[in-house]
C-alpha cells in the first residue's frame, strides 16, 4: 500500500468516524438526561439532510440547512412531548420498544414523502470532481467541511455544557435528577431540550455529509448502530471519548474494505460492538471501578 493510499484511507475513516461520533454524542445527550437510548437517533440525521434537500430549490444552501436543522429540532421536541414526557417512570424495555417504534414510523413517513430515491445536497464548495491536494493525497473540499463543521460543533457543545446556565442545568439533571429538581431546575424541560439538541446536531451532521454519502429514507438504522457502537466504545455518556472512538471505528472500517468484501463492512463494526459489549461494556476508557458500579 502506497503512502498516498494509506492517507486516503485515513481521511475517509476520519470523515465517517466524525459522523459516527456526532450520532454517538446525540445518544449520549439523551442518555445522560433520561437514561434512555433513543433508537430513533439515526432518523434525525436522515430527516435533517432530507429536509435540507427539499428546501434547497427555494432558497440559498445555508438558509436551507439552517431551516432544516430548526425543523428537525422541533420534530425532536415534538416526539419527546408526545411520546415520552408524560410517561411515569417507564421501564427500560418499554422505552426501547417505543423508540424503536418511533424510528420505524419516522422512516415510513419519510418513505411516503420522499420515496426510495437516493438524493444529495450539492457540494458546499466546488463539485464532486474538485479536490485539494496535500502532498499527493487528494481530498474533496466537502471532507474538510465535514471535519470542520463537526469539530466546531463538538467544541461549541462542550462550551455549552461547561459555561452556560442551561448547559449546567442539563448536566445537573444528568448527575442527579432529584437533586436538580430540588434546586429548582425543571427536569422535564431539560429532557425536551436534550431531544432538541441531539436532533439538531444529528441534522447538522446529516447535511454536511449528504453530498458525500447521499441520503435515503432508510439511512438512519445503519448510522444508529454505528453511533451506538461508538457510544459504547467510548463509554456511554462520555462525549469526548465518543469522538476518539468514532475516529477509531471510522478508520477501522475504512481499512476493512482493503482486506474484506464491502458487503461485510457493516458486519465488521457490529462485530466490534458485540466484542466490546462482551469484554468491556464500560467502554475503552471506562475505569474498572466505574464498571463495577454501573449496571449493564
Amino acid at each position, binding site marked *: 500500500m502506497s503512502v498516498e493510499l494509506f492517507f486516503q484511507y485515513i481521511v475517509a475513516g476520519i470523515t465517517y468516524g466524525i459522523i459516527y461520533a456526532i450520532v454517538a454524542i446525540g445518544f449520549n445527550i439523551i442518555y445522560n438526561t433520561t437514561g434512555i437510548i433513543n433508537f430513533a437517533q439515526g432518523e434525525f440525521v436522515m430527516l435533517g439532510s432530507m429536509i435540507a434537500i427539499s428546501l434547497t430549490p427555494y432558497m440559498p444552501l445555508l438558509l436551507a440547512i439552517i431551516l432544516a436543522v430548526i425543523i428537525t429540532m422541533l420534530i425532536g421536541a415534538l416526539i419527546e412531548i408526545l411520546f415520552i414526557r408524560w*410517561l411515569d417512570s417507564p421501564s427500560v424495555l418499554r422505552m426501547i*420498544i*417505543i423508540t*424503536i417504534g418511533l424510528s420505524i414510523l419516522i422512516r415510513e413517513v419519510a418513505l411516503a414523502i420522499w420515496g426510495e430515491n437516493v438524493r444529495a445536497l450539492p457540494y458546499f464548495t466546488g463539485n464532486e470532481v474538485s479536490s485539494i491536494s496535500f502532498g499527493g493525497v487528494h481530498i474533496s473540499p466537502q471532507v474538510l467541511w465535514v471535519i470542520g463543521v463537526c469539530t466546531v460543533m463538538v467544541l461549541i457543545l462542550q462550551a455549552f455544557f461547561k459555561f452556560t446556565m442551561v448547559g449546567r442545568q442539563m448536566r445537573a439533571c444528568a448527575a442527579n435528577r432529584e437533586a436538580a429538581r430540588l434546586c429548582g431546575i425543571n427536569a422535564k424541560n431539560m429532557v425536551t431540550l436534550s431531544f432538541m439538541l441531539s436532533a439538531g446536531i444529528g441534522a447538522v451532521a446529516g447535511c454536511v455529509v449528504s453530498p458525500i454519502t447521499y441520503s435515503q429514507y432508510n439511512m438512519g438504522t445503519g448510522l444508529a448502530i454505528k453511533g451506538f457502537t461508538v457510544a459504547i466504545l467510548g463509554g456511554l455518556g462520555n462525549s469526548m471519548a465518543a469522538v476518539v472512538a468514532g475516529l477509531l471505528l471510522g478508520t477501522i472500517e475504512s481499512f476493512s474494505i482493503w482486506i474484506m468484501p464491502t458487503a*461485510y463492512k457493516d458486519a465488521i463494526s457490529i462485530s466490534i460492538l*458485540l466484542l466490546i*459489549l462482551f469484554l468491556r461494556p464500560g467502554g475503552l476508557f471506562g475505569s474498572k471501578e466505574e464498571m463495577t458500579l454501573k449496571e449493564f
Partner: protein
Amino acid sequence: MRGRYLHITLLSIFVVAVQVITQITDTTYYLTQLTMAAYYSLVILGLTLLMGYAGQISLGHAGFFAIGGYTSAVLTTYNLIPYKEKAIVKVMASMGMLQMREDLYGGQILNLHPWIAFLLAIAITVAVAYVIGIPVLKLKGHYLAMATLGFGIIIYRIVLGTPLFGEADGISDVPAFGLLPGIEVSGDMSMRIQNYYIAWVIVIVAVLLLLNLIDSRVGRALRAIHGAEDAADAMGVNTAEYKLKTFILSAVFAATAGVFLTHFNGGIGPSEASVMKSVRYVAIVAAGGMASIWGALTMAAVLNFLSLRGYFGSYDDAVFGAILIVIMLFAPEGILRLPVMKNIQRLLRFKPSEGSDGAS
C-alpha cells in the same frame, strides 16, 4: 390444569372450524396464509417465553429463523450428484439420509433428506444460540437489545453477501418435506388442507409444551428472574443457566418455524432475516401482553394473517411500528388486558388467564 386442556380443546375445535368454514364458503385460499401465520406464531410463542416470562428482550430472532430456514434450504437443494462416487456420500445414501428427485427439466438431483437437514438446522441453531447466548445474556436493558440487534444484522449481512445463500435472491426450489409417508410440508395446492393441519398441530403442541413449562419449576424460576433477577439469584435460582436455556429454546422455536415455512414456501429470501422481521415479532409479543401465551398466539395469528393477505398494503412496516408505540404507550399489559377487554370478558363470563400467570 383442567382449564388449560379446555383451552387447548377449544383452540383445536376453532382450528377445525376455520377449515370447515373455508371449505363451505369456498375460500380455501385463506388456508395458505393461515398456514404461514401458524409458523410465524411459532416464532412468537418462543419469543413470548423469552421476553414475557424470562424478561429478556431479543431483537435478533429473525436471525434464528433465518439460520433454520437457510440451513435447511441449502442442505436440501445442494446437488450431490457430482460427488456421488465419494465414500461419504455413498455411506449417507446407504443409510437413507439422501433423497433423489428430478428437477423441472428432468435432470437428477441428489440431496440430503429434509429430516436430516432439519435436525442439522436445529443443531446449528442450538450451537449458535449457546455461543451467542452466554455473553449476550450477561447484558441487560439497552445493551441486551443492541447486542441481539447486532447479532440479527450480522446474520442478515452474511445471508445477503454470501453466494452460497443466494445473496439478494435467496434460495428457491426447496423440495417438499416428507414428514411421514403421505404427509409432507409443501406449497402444493392439493396439499393445502393437509399443510394447514400440520402447521396448526405443531402450534398446538408448542402451546401445550409452553403452558406446561410455565407452570413447572422452570416457569416459576423464570418469573422470579423477570421480577427481580438479583433476588432470584440470592434464592438459589441459577439465573444464568435458566436464561440461557430459555434463549436456546426460543431460538429452536424460531428455527423450526424457519425450516417448515421454507419447505412450505419452497424457498427463503434475505428479508426473512431483516431487522424489521425481528422488530415485528417483538411488536406482536408486546401486543399480546408480553407474558401471555394465549394473547401472543391470538395476536400472532390475526396480525400475521392480515399482513400476509396484504390488508396493510404498503404500510405494512408502519402498522407494526405504530402497534409498538400505541401498545407501549397505552396498554403495556397488552390489548387483551385493557380495562375495556376485561369488561367484555366479564360480560361474556369468559375467564381466560386472569393475572399475570398466563392460562392456568
